[in-house]
């Protein structure tokens, strides 16, 4: 039995990817883990006073997003694990992939204005990630 690791932020743009990876886990009989990475680097865009512990609030937001993803999985009789990390997506994907012995990493394809990456950038990101982790990286839920 393999382990699929799927990075997701939540939001409507991620639903097709979540549904696709849930179906894939069911089809392969693999375990499924969703990963949310709380990235506070957007705060560097302004010099306004940031005295709130933003990372901790984003981690809670991430846990909420992953409960939604787990509910989607449960609706298809898949029990998914949820992991929340703080940092940069790529670095945390590498760390978590090693931690859980992932056999497949899944990322969402570019879907409309809410997508995290342009398709071309995503392809490059996926190829680099595969080289770094030695784990197959697949892009699902793309509109292509």
């Amino acid at each position, binding site marked *: 039995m393999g382990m699929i690791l799927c990075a997701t*932020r939540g939001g409507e743009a991620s639903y097709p990817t979540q549904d696709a990876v849930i179906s894939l886990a069911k089809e392969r009989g693999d375990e499924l883990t969703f990963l949310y990475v709380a990235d506070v680097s957007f705060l560097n865009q302004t010099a306004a006073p*940031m005295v709130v512990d933003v990372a901790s609030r984003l981690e809670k937001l991430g846990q909420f997003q992953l409960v*939604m993803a787990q509910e989607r999985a449960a609706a298809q009789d898949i029990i998914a694990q949820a992991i929340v990390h703080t940092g940069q997506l790529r670095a945390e994907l590498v760390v978590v992939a090693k931690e859980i012995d992932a056999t497949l990493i899944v990322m969402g394809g570019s879907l409309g204005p809410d997508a995290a990456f342009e398709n071309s950038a995503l392809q490059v990101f996926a190829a680099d990630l595969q080289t770094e982790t030695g784990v197959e990286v697949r892009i699902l839920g793309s509109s292509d």
Partner: protein
Amino acid sequence: MKRNILYGLATVGIVGLVGGIWWLLAQPTDGGYEPAFFISTGIFLLVFAAISLRWMHETAAALLGAAAVWLVHYIGGTYFPALHIIDFEESMAFVDWNVIWLIMGMMIFMAMFSETGAINWISFRTFRMAKGNAWLLVMSLVILTAVLSAFLNDVTAILLVVPLSIEIAQTVGIHPFAFVIPEVLASNIGGAATIIGDPPSTIVGSHLGLSFVDYLVHMAPIAILCMIPFLIIISLLYRRDLAGAKEQFSPALMARLEADAHITDFPLLRKSGLVGLLMIILFFTGDYFGGIPPSVIALSGAAILVAWVRPDMHRMLHEVDWTTLIFFISIFIIVGGLEATGVIAWMAGIIGDLAGDSLKMATILMVWIPGIASSIVANIPFTVASLPIADFLTATIPGAENGVLYWALILGADLGGNATILGSAPNIVAVGLLSQAGYRLGFGRFMRDGVPVAIATLLLATVWLLVWY
């Protein structure tokens, strides 16, 4: 278009620098505009463009600008006296330390208060009390955000309210934009109500030496009044979204929501609540105690809370956002250079010519120029640079002694910031928070809501100022 304008500003900045050097080499000065005039203008415009175009972090840009002012003054001025902009001692006199200490005191207080979980608890109670009425829920959270912006500050209010609002929106099945955009717009309006609400309010209020109450009696009524057209516009824009709310919520999501919304530290809440209450009492009674400045009240509150709670001081100091303080100090220094070289007086002369002796025309200009500018460029350097212009116009236009032009500047800078994502810091922070939940809020989508609200509130503010003052 915005990008082109900002690139245009940067070009003018570079031309100003090159022009200053050319002037220096071409002719000895004999009065009139000196090279330092052009070079300080060039430095300011380059910093302005770097901040607005996100070439680098705002603080890095401002610090670089302040360093450039001093380097040109000391190194350039050693060889060419016409390059004297402003020396270190003179520039320190341009820094408004009341603003710096006020922001620092409030940051220390807010850092501790935000750890209590009280705002999340209130937001969740609001959700429960709305009993599925999505319109009531959004309006309640929006008003909560406006009040928090007035008494904490606008960015803190957004950081505290928005993450849980996104979760609530997803629970009730409404697009998070219907919660978050109105909250952001409300934070900019609410921030205008008090001297601690947002940076333009703090900068102008401190410049005038106003107490909390002096400021409140002038600005709170118009801020509250502006909430009326704002709430009407928001109700109209989101009537369809709010009508589509779910009536049954997922138990798992509700459990998660509730877990994120409990009081995390009761002793800290009790202590920070008491100190916060004491600060509010002092803010309101400050005039009785010899006009105690808001900065002294904020710092005293922070000091009492630190002594009472005994937090880890290294951690505490780490949580003070030093980048903000350095940004403000640097902007004051750069604008000090503009004042020292006569740039501000020159700009004030132009606006004075446009307004003539008409206080009404000057008021309209002082609302709408900052209002439009704040929607395109960073409103903090703009406000700092506009203050000496307001001083000049107040001193020269008959009838302006009542301070109407300063109120106009605050309202223009605060309310204009609602028009675009770049208009104010809460807008940028909210876009980042939404992106973290998978929702990308674009420039055009924000403007759909922001522009009508900005225009309606700026119009109302203009009428208010013309009638009341």
